[in-house]
């Protein structure tokens, strides 16, 4: 454990399961002996708004939050949210992006347009791992495991070899959903090879 501290930002829309994904990530980091801090915003943001969860790890972590240009990795559960938080990413940072679109209430009401070319703009600007986690999850039998598909992609992008992520999933997920979630994790990893 000689590395510098690392920061991950998980962004999406309220209800997509970003917080649960962050918890699995944190359990893995803790099992490998890292100091970990995690920060999330509650309250009004839960009602269909944009949500973000931050995870920081290393030998000793102080701040539970970062500012612009300080994230090593962003996991976007929705592609416009990737663009919204892009300036938190370091120039050499990595983005894992779900090719998935959720119109905001303002777009749905016809008050503005959903921006075109979110994915392409991210791919032009940063090193990106893009996947359609929603489709992969439905293919596995449940749209609800989309967040674990993204988690699989995240672990591939992190390329950390000191954490046994499958054991972490085994320890975190209820037995009833274990096989589905392990399949989702592996499919997510394979999707961004």
């Amino acid at each position, binding site marked *: 454990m000689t590395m510098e501290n690392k920061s991950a930002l998980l962004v999406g*829309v*309220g209800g997509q399961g970003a917080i649960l994904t962050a918890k699995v990530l*944190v359990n893995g980091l*803790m099992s490998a002996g890292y*100091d*970990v*801090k*995690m*920060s*999330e*915003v*509650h*309250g*009004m*943001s*839960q*009602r*269909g*708004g*944009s949500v973000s969860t931050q995870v920081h790890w290393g030998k000793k972590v*102080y*701040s*539970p*939050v*970062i*500012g*612009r*240009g*300080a994230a090593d990795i962003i996991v976007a559960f929705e592609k*416009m*949210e990737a*663009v*919204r938080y*892009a*300036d*938190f*990413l*370091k*120039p050499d940072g990595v983005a894992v992006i779900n090719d998935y679109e959720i*119109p*905001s*209430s*303002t*777009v*749905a*009401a*016809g*008050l*503005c347009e*959903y*921006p*075109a*070319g*979110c994915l392409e*703009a*991210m791919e*032009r*600007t*940063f090193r990106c791992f893009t996947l359609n986690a929603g489709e992969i999850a439905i293919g596995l039998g449940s*749209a609800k495991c989309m967040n674990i598909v993204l988690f699989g992609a995240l672990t591939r992008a992190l390329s950390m070899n000191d954490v046994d992520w499958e054991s972490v999933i085994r320890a975190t997920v209820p037995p009833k959903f274990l096989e589905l979630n392990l399949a989702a994790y592996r499919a997510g990893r394979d999707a961004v090879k």
Partner: protein
Amino acid sequence: MVIILERQLLSGNEAIARGAYEAGIRVCSAYPGTPSTEIFENLPQYADSLYCEWAPNEKVATEMAYGACMGGVRSLCAMKHVGLNVAADPMFTAAYNGVGAAFVIVTADDPSMHSSQNEQDNRYYARSAKIALIEPSDSQECVDFMKEACRISEKFDMPVLFRTTTRVSHSKSLVTPGEREEPAVTPYVRNADKFVSVPAHAYRNHAKVEKNLAELEKYSNVCPLNRVEMNGTKIGVVTASIAYEYAKDAFPADTSFLKLGLTNPLPMDLIRSFAAKVDKLYVIEELEDFMEAQIRAAGIPCEGKNLTGRLYELNPQLLKERIFGVKPETRDTGVQAVSRPPALCPGCPHRGFFYTMSKNKNFVVAGDIGCYTLGCAAPLNAMDTCVCMGGGFSVAVGLAKTFEVTGQTEKKVFGVLGDSTFFHSGMTGAAEIIYNKAHVIPVVLDNSITGMTGHQDNPGSGYTLQGDVAEAIRIEDVLKSYGFEAVIIVDPQDLTAMQKAVDDALASAVPAAIICRRPCLLIKRMHHDIGLCTVDTDKCIGCRKCLKVGCPAVMTVNGKSRIDPTACVGCTVCAQVCPVGAISRKENG
């Protein structure tokens, strides 16, 4: 036998609950409010060792907990920052009387206003009330400082204000749990000289307060919560709370720190000796110059607010930029995300009421704090004011009297608040409407839960914090006993009935009130009638009227309406406004 407990990742709020348990606190009361709510959601797990409850409001919670401390056990109350405005009255007098056993008041401030109407800095309350202020920086300190807060409260005979911010309360960090202290309980005896705050006692008590505060200031210089980390002599930083964590990341490794946990009264001798050891002194704090102004007034040169500013949350990158001029390196994607404002959920019972309000330009709606504040957002745009908890009814009276004295009689005023807010401080506003004959229709949006803070029970919901069955106070009975002879109870999701309720209330010859009653769909213990609405695109004429209800599930695609089947719950409000019957509900969709 010593049990070694494993390290756990806890939020600051979970850690405060743990700290209350370990400190031997026995009685706890709170009103929910972001970012403080989870403290009390995490207390029932310790119910074998302590009593905890939701109070109707923060003032009641503070009075109740103070009563327990006068009774002789350690007690705690908790609230968000604006809640302390409501609870300030008992706090200021508790400061004069002093405590029986320890009394801790938790305030969770919200810099950047993630879920609040202002970003007031509650550290000034401690200075103003002349009580101790303790500020943890992470979850381990939330546990450890709670025990020290209890010791300080008892040793210096004063309430302790225990202040967090959103990032302390809602960030998770590693905690090593400890064991519970069991303070001895002394049998209760009356002590009227101390606890009856008549003027003669208060006159004497003020002198005692000043003496105790002076003693506490002496102690603050040696208190274990205030510590020096010497790493070099070039730069020194005085800091506290979450700003300590930001500064540790932002300043060079050879920076020395004076990290304060007890911040009122400030340890000025300790600060002076620390300042003398470094070439340059910074004071790093979020929001106001609470510490810096006092340090400057003591004649110690320092810098801080001139660089960091008073607005909003800080973070390490902001500090690096504002103090050292190091701009973060970022890349622009060239694409602009559109805003994703929070909206009333699909199937939210409040939608039907606000849609009805939105149709009449002469309706003036005095709103309040809760999920229903979102009735102000486009496309509903159905709210005129929102000030504070309970303000919905009383602000409405002010508006109605204005229209009365200025002859704007075409304006019809509605005061709007929720069930939990009604019990919090809406009832006094209802009395104001009757007592002063105001032309206001009070409307209680009763969704059977305290919604926005994440579903806490209240005096109308029928359950306690521990989940036990409680007496559910009937809002209609309260309103009737006040003199609202016509209390109209309506299902707001039935738009025809909702419109009739409004028309009937306005036409009523006797004082009228409306209760819009339908439970929040997110209440887990209830069965909900979930369906699915779909659009017949052949019938849809693309008039976009269904978009006017402001439902996140309803959108327009290629000129025709479309309903997101993953979001829709089949409430049919959009179907009721469709002029051509293009939307229909399928059962069990």
